[in-house]
């Protein structure tokens, strides 16, 4: 792709992504006042974040992959059950994955 074509794609894609963000902020307030809509919006966030955890921990591209990220996530879950602070959870997960990879796990 020529530099000009790449620049066009960069700007156009950025505009699309920004427009999607803005649309979410322009939803009328009274739509959200209904309890069922408010509950659904909250559940959508739960679903998106949960799916992100799964996809980030267990996939590469279109493949399901079990590597050092899974034991790292298990350590994070245990830390959360023990009410560890956020930064401790994240550092423990990174440390677990780094250690397992240093020991030869993929």
């Amino acid at each position, binding site marked *: 792709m020529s530099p000009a074509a790449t620049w066009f794609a960069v700007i156009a*894609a950025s505009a699309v992504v*920004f427009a999607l963000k803005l649309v979410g902020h322009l939803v009328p307030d009274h739509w959200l006042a209904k309890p069922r809509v408010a509950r659904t919006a909250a559940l959508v966030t739960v679903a998106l974040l949960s799916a992100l955890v799964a996809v980030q921990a267990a996939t590469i591209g279109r*493949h399901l992959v079990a590597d050092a990220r899974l034991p790292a996530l298990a350590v994070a879950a245990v830390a959360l059950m023990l009410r560890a602070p956020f930064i401790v959870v994240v550092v423990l997960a990174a440390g677990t994955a780094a250690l397992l990879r240093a020991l030869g796990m993929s």
Partner: protein
Amino acid sequence: MTPDARRAVLRQSISVAVATGLYGISFGALSVVAGLSTAQTMALSLLMFSGGSQFAFIGVIGAGGAAGAAIATAGLLGARNGLYGPQVTPLLAAHGWRKPLAAQLTIDESTAVATAQSDPAAGRLGFWWTGVGVFVMWNLFTLLGAVLGDALGDPRTYGLDAAAAAAFLALVWPRLADGLARLVAGAAVAVGLALTPFTPAGVPVLLAAVVAVVVGLVAPQDETKEPA
């Protein structure tokens, strides 16, 4: 908000910003490898500012894909940011120039920190600190990654990919106290993983949200007193 509660929100926001920002190194490095210039790489982090969309965009360009495919893939992965808007607008009450600014900062991390707080003031604080913090760190480290390239090595060596997954787990954790939310979370994980082999990147996560829409609209109202 007590000073202690305020400090807790700031600590969480800054932790998320640093963890996410560090991952920007790998974006910067990979973008240059995919054939983008340093200026184009920085334009993506400044203007697009959505990690999933950015990685997908350079992935398509690097694989020799057409501009249209790169734009569509970035949009598909960015669509979930549009679903976050209705979650954060009641907390922010942003008007005028703050509205587009808030929109640009509406990403996984800022939404997750904002909605994990127990009161609206803490949520608002968490949104802005996390949004601005991630923006600054993400762009600084994108630049570093683009300039240093591969000299730093694979971010996976430091477990940064696992850190990203753990961060999202920690952020969704407080919402899982509710039975209905746990059900939705389990179904979302199943849908996300089951669809991964068969659909383009970004689609599994979006379709997982459909589960929540169906459950939220159909499940009996009294099963959950308070939205999570």
